[in-house]
């Protein structure tokens, strides 16, 4: 800016509502005193500047008076609102009271409490009853979505049906209107999450008291056939001063038998407290809430959620596959019975959990009484018998002490050494140092070590071995050993895991014992222990399952082994379906399902799962084991199958490598060249300074001086490739496409369904479409838009330009909203008026969309209403990208600097096809003419930037008068 343009200062001040940044002017302000003074005088007179400086001075009474008197702090402290909040606030009705944020029905909104998955929670005053309430408003962007709307009203129905002191009651519901909302009491005190963040782990007594109340609330909801689906500390409210806990946010609750809205498989909820069945996208029931309750109790005891990771996907994998760190490892003060209760609630298998929420409530109440009066009241029986369930696979764990863990690790070293030696020189006597402490009864580990030693000496004497293991098992069961159940399982697990190294068949009798002793989740710990002694075994759930299946296979209980193995196969299949694996020939697994090759089958499954987990060395190792097949007879068919498998496996491995490469593909800095949110295109001006930076797993958007961070996960295998973006615990499924330096992303904003295409088609109104261009250090700016403008006009660009051409400036929009005549507004809005004119001829269903009932020129109020629906940053447009169904263009036959094209719209908006012309002005394409053939109307962009309208036929003049004038 060479000479000072004072108008620019004025324009700058006016523009602030619309975030149009004039960088050049700002830079100029840094140097030019004259412009500063002018700008400041335009902003307010000297008196105002002085008063602001003086009166806004904080003083010693401020803090006190805020606390005592003001509600302004509610809004004052939040700074910038996230988009969803702004969206809701923008849609509130105006209020006379400048201190309030607005009005919704008769509720005066006084502040923002928070944002949830479905909308925004506002604090409000209900003037008719003189009470403060919380109003949960569905975000307007979501309210357009029929599915979301249904879910919202279902939430209201569900929650209103439950009347219980531990469930937040619903005062009222308004499901109609642009912003459906429901009204609840405003509960002072904050959420359990807030307390957790502030205080860390809670005292056991509080944990029990809170847990029992959650269980009571859940029991009431469950009785009505509801599943909350989203029990987590944020949804548990603590009333101030009262020891009462209330469950809120039945946002995802649903009647068990109502499949119509929440589709099976559509994962909804915050992942950290999800149940495994929820994470797998399976049908869930009330028992899922019990798992979440267990997770909440875990968090209350330990101060952190049981499963944490960088991405939701990873969290969900953990929930499905892994066992959380034992509570008593984190805090040894937690009593065993408490850890046992949490573990049981968090059983992977729903059947292993407690049967009902009220059972849990009774138990926790009993424990609380015991805690308060340990001498008078005994611990409830259910808490003392930690694994009383008859189910064979009880997952309750008692936690091992450090000493046992250490001896287990020592044992692994010993055993591995011993076995390696037995493999090379089977008869050499090599004494291993004893781990037994002199003055104590031998532990199970000691005993097992002795057994292994003996077995090594006389491997053929399996009968004795079996006898010893049985005795060991019996001793463990009757608790005559200073060991825990875990140790018992672990020792058995060791044998199961170590046996393959012997490369000899396991006697069936021994296998049977092992199978009985081994359970899937003990082996997780084994893998853990093995990892600690230097074996790169990943402690993931499928391994333990595989170990269990192997043990069963050895034991000859083929049927059970097959069941286990089928579960593994199911996991593989799920991965294929999720697109994490190419569509493999999985049939070989089926064909190998015979008694002879169960072991091989499992080896192969393990190989595949290893490959999936990215451990190619282990995968190769497993597949070779399967191929060598020394333990079983190998038939010709088997060999063929195995070869086939290995080929398939190499495909997986290649893919895994590709995925790893892909995971870094987006790393770097990107510019946004196009952005469309729910059908609204962001003007280029606003995109100018937006930068998105990807690291390996995070995505940071820098705009307007604020950074927004999200995590993301890619899956390049499917077509189109998947991207999942997680912000504030909420994951949005999307697709992406990377071509050279251009990245396209389309994210589902509201529906939760993954988009299928990048364009702005009819069904993508709720999606966000971004086109990004990689920022290269050497490259100039605006490469991408220049690229688009460089060649002939392409439909992609035309789709962006058309809405802009049919747009109206903010100033004109304001004028239109007050002026009685649309011709009072200037320039581009005329094309808008034109576009709206013909709507009147269309069939009635346009009325639903735009409410243009007026015959002829639409009323300004109608225009305003239609356009306000489309409010984008900086301008309002009648044509939204999502209205465009078809767009074609080609160079004009006689003039390379012009293009001609046609555009069609959603029939509910505008039925006819409109032709248009574009020309290059200063190297950029500009839409310069619209033609409505069936109406014989043409509008042309004149040199002064205004649109001039002409009619092809002289007799068509009935409604043109109002819009002929284009000057202002």
């Amino acid at each position, binding site marked *: 800016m060479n000479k000072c343009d004072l108008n620019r200062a004025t324009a*700058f*001040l006016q523009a*602030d509502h619309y975030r149009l940044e004039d960088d050049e*002017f*700002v*830079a*100029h*302000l*840094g*140097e030019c005193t004259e412009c*500063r003074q002018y*700008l*400041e005088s*335009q*902003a*307010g007179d000297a008196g*105002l*500047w002085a*008063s*602001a*400086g003086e*009166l*806004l*001075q904080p003083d010693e*009474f401020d803090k*006190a*008076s*805020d*606390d*005592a*008197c*003001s*509600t*302004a*702090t509610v*809004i*004052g402290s*939040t*700074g*910038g*609102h996230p988009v969803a909040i702004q969206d809701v606030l923008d849609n509130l009705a105006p209020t*006379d*009271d*400048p*201190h309030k*944020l607005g009005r919704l029905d008769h509720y005066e909104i006084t502040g923002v409490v928070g944002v949830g998955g479905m909308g925004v929670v506002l604090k409000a*005053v209900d*003037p008719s009853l*003189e*009470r*403060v309430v919380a109003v949960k408003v569905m975000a307007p962007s979501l309210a357009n979505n029929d599915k979301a709307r249904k879910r919202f009203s279902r939430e209201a129905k569900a929650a209103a049906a439950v009347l219980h002191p531990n469930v937040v009651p619903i005062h009222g519901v308004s499901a109609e209107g642009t912003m459906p909302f429901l009204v609840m009491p405003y509960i*002072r005190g904050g959420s359990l999450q807030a307390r957790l963040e502030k205080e860390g782990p809670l005292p056991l007594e509080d944990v029990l008291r809170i847990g029992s109340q959650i269980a009571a609330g859940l029991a009431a909801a469950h009785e009505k056939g509801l599943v909350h689906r989203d029990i987590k500390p944020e949804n548990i409210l603590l009333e*101030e001063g009262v020891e009462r806990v209330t469950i809120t946010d039945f946002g995802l609750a649903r009647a068990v038998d109502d499949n119509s809205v929440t589709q099976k498989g559509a994962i909804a909820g915050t992942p950290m407290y999800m149940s495994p069945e929820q994470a797998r996208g399976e049908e869930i029931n009330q028992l899922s809430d019990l798992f979440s309750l267990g997770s909440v109790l875990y968090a209350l005891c330990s101060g952190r959620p049981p499963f944490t990771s960088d991405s939701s996907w990873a969290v969900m994998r953990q929930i499905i596959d892994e066992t959380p760190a034992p509570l008593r490892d984190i805090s040894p003060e937690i009593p065993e019975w408490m850890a046992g209760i949490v573990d049981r609630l968090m059983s992977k298998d729903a059947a292993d959990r407690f049967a009902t929420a009220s059972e849990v409530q009774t138990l926790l109440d009993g424990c609380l009484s015991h805690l308060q009066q340990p001498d008078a009241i005994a611990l409830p029986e259910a808490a003392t018998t930690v694994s009383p369930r008859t189910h064979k696979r009880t997952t309750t764990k008692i936690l091992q002490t450090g000493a046992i863990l250490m001896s287990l690790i020592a044992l692994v070293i010993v055993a591995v050494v011993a076995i390696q030696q037995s493999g090379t020189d089977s008869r050499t006597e090599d004494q291993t140092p004893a781990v037994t402490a002199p003055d104590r009864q031998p532990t199970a580990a000691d005993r097992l070590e002795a057994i292994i030693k003996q077995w090594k000496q006389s491997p053929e004497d399996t009968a004795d071995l079996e006898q010893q293991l049985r005795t060991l098992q019996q001793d463990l069961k009757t608790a005559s050993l200073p060991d825990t159940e875990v140790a018992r399982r672990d020792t058995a697990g060791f044998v199961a895991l170590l046996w393959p190294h012997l490369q000899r068949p396991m006697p069936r009798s021994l296998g049977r014992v092992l199978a009985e002793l081994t359970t899937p989740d003990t082996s997780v710990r084994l893998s853990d222990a093995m990892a600690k002694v230097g074996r790169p075994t990943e402690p993931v759930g499928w391994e333990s399952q595989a170990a269990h299946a192997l043990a069963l296979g050895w034991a000859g209980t083929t049927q059970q082994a097959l069941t286990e193995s089928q579960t593994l196969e199911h996991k593989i299949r799920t991965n294929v379906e999720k697109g994490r694996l190419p569509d493999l020939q999985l049939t070989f697994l089926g064909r190998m399902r015979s008694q002879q090759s169960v072991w091989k089958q499992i080896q192969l499954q393990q190989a595949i799962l290893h490959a999936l987990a990215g451990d190619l060395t282990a995968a190769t190792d497993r597949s070779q084991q399967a191929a060598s097949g020394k333990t079983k007879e190998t038939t010709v068919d088997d060999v063929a199958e195995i070869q086939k498998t290995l080929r398939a496996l190499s495909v997986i491995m290649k893919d895994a490598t590709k995925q790893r490469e892909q995971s870094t593909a987006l790393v770097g800095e990107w510019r946004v060249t196009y952005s469309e949110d729910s059908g609204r295109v962001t003007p280029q001006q606003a995109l100018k300074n937006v930068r998105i930076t990807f690291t390996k797993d995070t995505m940071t958007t820098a705009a*307007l*001086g*604020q950074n927004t961070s999200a995590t993301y996960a890619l899956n390049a295998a499917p077509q189109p490739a998947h991207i999942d973006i997680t912000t504030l615990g909420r994951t949005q499924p999307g697709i992406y496409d990377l071509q050279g330096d251009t990245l396209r992303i389309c994210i589902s904003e509201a529906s939760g369904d993954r988009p299928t295409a990048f364009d702005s088609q009819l069904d993508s109104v709720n999606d966000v479409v971004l086109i990004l261009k990689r920022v290269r250090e050497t490259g100039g700016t605006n490469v991408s838009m220049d690229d688009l403008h460089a060649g002939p006009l392409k439909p992609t660009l035309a789709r962006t330009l058309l809405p802009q051409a049919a747009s109206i400036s903010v100033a004109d929009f304001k004028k239109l909203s007050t002026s009685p005549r649309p011709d009072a507004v200037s320039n581009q809005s005329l094309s808008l008026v034109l576009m709206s004119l013909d709507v009147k001829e269309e069939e009635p269903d346009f009325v639903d969309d735009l409410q243009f009932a007026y015959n002829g020129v639409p009323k300004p109020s109608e225009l305003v209403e239609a356009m306000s629906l489309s409010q984008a940053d900086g301008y309002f447009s009648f044509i939204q990208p999502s209205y465009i169904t078809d767009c074609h263009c080609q160079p004009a036959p006689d003039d390379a600097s012009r293009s001609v094209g046609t555009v069609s719209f959603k029939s509910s908006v505008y039925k006819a096809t409109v032709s248009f012309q574009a020309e290059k002005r200063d190297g950029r394409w500009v839409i310069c003419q619209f033609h409505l053939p069936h109406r014989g109307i043409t509008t042309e962009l004149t040199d002064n930037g205004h649109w001039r309208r002409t009619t092809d036929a002289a007799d068509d003049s009935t409604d043109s008068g109002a819009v002929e004038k284009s000057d202002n």
Partner: protein
Amino acid sequence: MTEFPETRATLLAGVKARENREAWEDFLLTYRPVIYRMARRRGLQDADAQDAVQNILVRVSAAIADYEPQPGTKFRHWLRRVARNAILSALSRGPKDAAVGGTAADEQLQRQPEQDDASRELAHEHRREQFHRAAAVVRSDVNTETWQAFELTVVQGLSCEDAAKTIGKSVGTVYAARSRIIKRLREQLDRMQELN
């Protein structure tokens, strides 16, 4: 403080007409902190100051029962006059029964300068509260750095250069930001003024 909604119900009891109700609610929002601060400035502790606020407001609300709409007078204006009197008489020092040996006129004379001071103080506090309320609205509407640019320079008196360094933005940005805030503040204050 949690007493806010409950006491308001009591205070509202006498106000029937809807527009008067709004005026009254608005009045409460502004005057609560004003009275509280004036009371604190007179040495009252937090709880006593809150009591004073409550007493004065109850007294004002009782007067509302006597209010009769008259052509040309707005409830808002009437309310402010009543409130002003109640506040000044309650918070001016020199309780009536302490004026031993003097006539009522003497007492009145003695109290006059003090009342003038208190009156000025009230006007100042009222204006201050309006600024704070307007600022809260503006602040909720802009991003943190824009607000900081304003607060550091205009309120805390830092130079624009220093403020720019503190928030890590250019000097131009600071100038631009604070002007925008002032402009919005002005608009917000105007809007609040229109109501009165």
